[in-house]
């Protein structure tokens, strides 16, 4: 479990990193390294050159404003998870990050890195999609923003072009009268989810259901968000929750592996759909109550 030989550089300016990457598009960017380094050590991938961006101070930031939360490529999961303002502005970040692996991995792993790893069994690609976030990428040619909907184009595959480094991500604030919930079921605490689900639920001014959007983990090849609003014309009850689960399953493609059968994952999707929508509804009502009484 030792990686094959590679060259290594650790620039301290983004421009240096971009130039180095442009010069060698076969290089890999090292941020938290929580997926890349094990793959290299097990020789499941070989890398000719590592460009370590950990020395680039400008990428290490978290900014929360009323518009939303913007975080740099070196913001660690643990930092974003613990960021009180970020949690207030967009509580889904904290809720989902609680389920990302273990504390030691969250201390090192970066949220932007997790997003561009584009693993549909990771939490953060789905969260970015569910929240309608964007990713900013940079190259020697300049910067551009990619909407989450356009970012994930295949399993472990993103719309980043050769020479582009993901430098920051943005998720909009949770709108008024909205609530969130996130839950997942894994074999062990901190494992990849067998199935997971984040829900953003909007209420009308009189407390009816305005929107229900659900992002699913580990039951498709690319991150997926399903709009389940139409399942709740008359509010949320047991039968509408069952209907929502079935509706969601029409768009999901759960697969079996050594940890769980496809049927079981479908059952988890049903169960979590009901549980998480119920929780998001309670959260939305609580927030609405706070907004009204504030």
């Amino acid at each position: 479990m030792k990686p094959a030989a590679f060259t290594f550089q650790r620039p301290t300016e983004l421009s240096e990193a971009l130039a180095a990457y442009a010069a060698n598009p076969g290089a890999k960017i090292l941020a938290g390294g929580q997926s890349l380094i094990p793959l290299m050590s097990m020789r499941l991938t070989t890398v000719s050159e590592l460009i370590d961006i950990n020395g680039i101070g400008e990428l290490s930031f978290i900014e929360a404003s009323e518009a939303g939360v913007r975080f740099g490529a070196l913001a660690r999961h643990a930092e974003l998870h613990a960021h009180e303002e970020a949690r207030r502005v967009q509580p889904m970040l904290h809720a989902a990050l609680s389920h990302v692996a273990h504390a030691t991995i969250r201390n090192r792993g970066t949220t932007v890195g997790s997003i561009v790893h584009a693993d549909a069994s990771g939490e953060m690609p789905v969260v970015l999609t569910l929240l309608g976030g964007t990713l900013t990428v940079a190259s020697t040619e300049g910067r551009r923003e990619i909407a989450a909907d356009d970012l994930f184009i295949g399993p472990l595959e993103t719309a980043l072009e050769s020479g582009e480094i993901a430098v920051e991500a943005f998720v909009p604030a949770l709108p008024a009268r909205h609530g969130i919930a996130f839950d997942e079921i894994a074999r062990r605490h901190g494992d990849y989810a067998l199935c997971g689900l984040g829900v953003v639920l909007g209420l009308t001014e009189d407390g009816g259901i305005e929107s229900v959007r659900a992002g699913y983990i580990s039951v498709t090849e690319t991150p997926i968000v399903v709009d389940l609003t139409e399942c709740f014309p008359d509010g949320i009850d047991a039968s509408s929750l069952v209907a929502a689960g079935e509706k969601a399953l029409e768009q999901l493609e759960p697969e079996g592996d050594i940890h769980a059968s496809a049927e079981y994952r479908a059952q988890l999707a049903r169960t979590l759909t009901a549980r998480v929508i119920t929780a998001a509804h309670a959260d939305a009502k609580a927030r609405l109550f706070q907004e009204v009484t504030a």
Partner: protein
Amino acid sequence: MTTKMMGEPVARVEDDRLVTGRGRYADDLAPEALEMAVLRSPHAHARIVSIDVDAVLDVAGVHAVYTYEDLEGALAEPLPLLIPHPNLTHGRTQYALAKDEVNYVGEAIAIVIADNRYLAEDAVGLIEVQYEFLPPVVGIDAARAAENLVHDDVPGNVAATMEQSFGDPEADIGGAPHRLTFDLEIERSACMPMEGRGTVARWDPDLKRMSVWSSTQTSTGVRAAVATKLGLDLSQVDVITPDVGGGFGVKIVHPWPEEVLVPMAAKVLGRPVKFTEDRREHFISSAHERGQQQHIDVGFDDDGRILGLSVQFWHDNGAYTPYGLIVPIITSTQLIGPYKLPSYRVVFQSLYTNTVIVTPYRGAGRPQGVFAMERTMDAIAAYLGKDRTEVREVNFIQPDEFPYAHGELSFQDGRPLIYDSGNYPEMMRKAKALVDWDEFEKVRDEARAEGRKVGIGIACYVEGTGVGPYEGGHVQIETSGKVKVSTGLTTQGQGHETAFAQIVADELGVRFEDIQVVTGDTRRSPYSVGTFASRAAVMSGSAVALAARAAKAKALRLAADALEVDVDDLEIVDGIVRVKGAPASQIALGTLAVLSNPLRYAFDEASRAATQFAVGDPTKPPVAEDDEPGLEGKDYYSPMRSTFASGIHIVIVETDPETAEVSILKYAVVHDCGTLINPRIVEGQVHGGVAQGVGGALYERMAYDETGQLQNASFMDFLMPYVTEVPESIEIDHLETPSPLNPLGLKGAGEAGVIPGAAAFASAIEDAENFTITSMPISPSELYALRLSKATDTATERTNT
């Protein structure tokens, strides 16, 4: 009075070192050593057509590459079959490096020695091997079907068939008022110590001496193997176990190919060489255990009393049988547990598959045996509508029936299966009290009314521990008064340094902190067997107690001379020998150590007292004819047969009605390992064992695909439980029925915690779900599938006749 140490929850002296990163493991030694990497077979079954190493030879930093062709003498012979058995008619072992054929993914084919492991792995990637594929045999079904053979010359893939019996079970079962037959299955798991295997060797060409440091459970075993394989005299080889990061059984197997190849390379190259196993290698090239299929046939009366039991099982021994039949023999004998069987027949086949070898993993065949017997007890209770504890109680061996012989059954040590002591009814009383067993029906009913599923499960076991043949102890009192203790068996974190020091402190009358214990160093203890079968406390504990008694006898004799009193009037307290009732008349053990060794040369102030012009009766030789210099004691302990520890585990689980996840609400253990040396260490052993039991019941399996590739050879996919998956607290109660077989009444405690895990969880899940569980481990996905199948098919697996 010296504070009594035996039975006290003394804090472990080794922990400070081990938990603050100051342990020294094989990989920490000889940083200058060359490192070895191994080319392992990527195929489960293939003939090796050719191996081309040319591309490796020119790589900078590579010192050597070896294949089977380079092995000479005994090293070119198959590795030893460690425990031969007359029934093992078709035993097979692998070569240190594969000759002609590979039989599992991971089998060693070639090694590269390089400046470091990185370069060695690069070089391994350059070796080209041509294979001719053979059909792999994966799983017990395929082995039994024998459409393909693992070894051409082993018909039916059967390494061994063995039968043991007493009474006439067929007649007893046939004549019984009730009869049940059913099938059971247990999946594979493995030891998974934090530190994998590791070996460092240094050859001194001037002194012609081989020093080997190996992460092993038997230093003397490795020493003998290295000497034999390399054609060295035993006296030329030292094997030292540094700190070992866990063993759990896998490191009793020896020699591993690497354990002889590293010394070979060190000798040829004249440089220290090191091999450090990585985690993937541990999964695919060490050892697994547990996999069995079982068929039960039992007859019983209206009270649930077993009248006859007949068990047939099929044991997956993997590709080779270096450890003989120990695991299935243990299953077949320990299956009986704490029960009285009027008649019993057990037949097993040990079967080859193209998978990693199967050798003892903590529990060593007992978890499977307990699973068979405890599932049987639950099946009888369900059939008769009786409480599960009642059915067990009616079958218990009673306290006044010890020693209890199970017919003419022969145990794993080749000796008759005779239980030494125990009190199973009292153990059951304690176990039921820990969980309020009789009230649980109400709890379950209330939960059901709320739509929740909770269940309680129970499993009893008896564990043969402390098997022979022997261990030794050496206790030496230095002139400083410090006491140095050595025993030959090895330590993998159990707390031997603490427990053995407690024994010596009490036996000798010295302060605990003045005692230092060394284990597993052939320079100190050349005669020893090893650490396995929960034997360290019984074997080495007894041996160091005997050695301490010998040292004490000599100290008292010397003191009696010096103080001119009778030996019987003396006592030793805190390292001072004194006259009972007249403590002012005293002499320190350190002083006696000085006097015990008549000197010509004074090397310090204390030793002046022992020089020739200071002491001695000029009319006698300085050392009496029947005496030896020095204040030390040495003795060996060799028991007639094994001791038998016992216990009961009860677990309460809740299963999620929607997701079928299993959560543990309570876990309770009653445990009897005879006299307790250190309850804290015993409880730690129980905690760790329970955690492994949880793993074996709910999480761990070896996911081989049909081609023999292990699909989960990493900690990401092999689900060893985290601390978050094991019970936050474990209720423990001890029972102490001392063993009459050894001086301290000890029984072993090392493996017990893991043994009844799968059986207890199956029992609890069955209770929560109200349908039969026949296969473990069980995942939520499998439990969910069972629920669906039970909902559509109400037929039961059990054939009731």
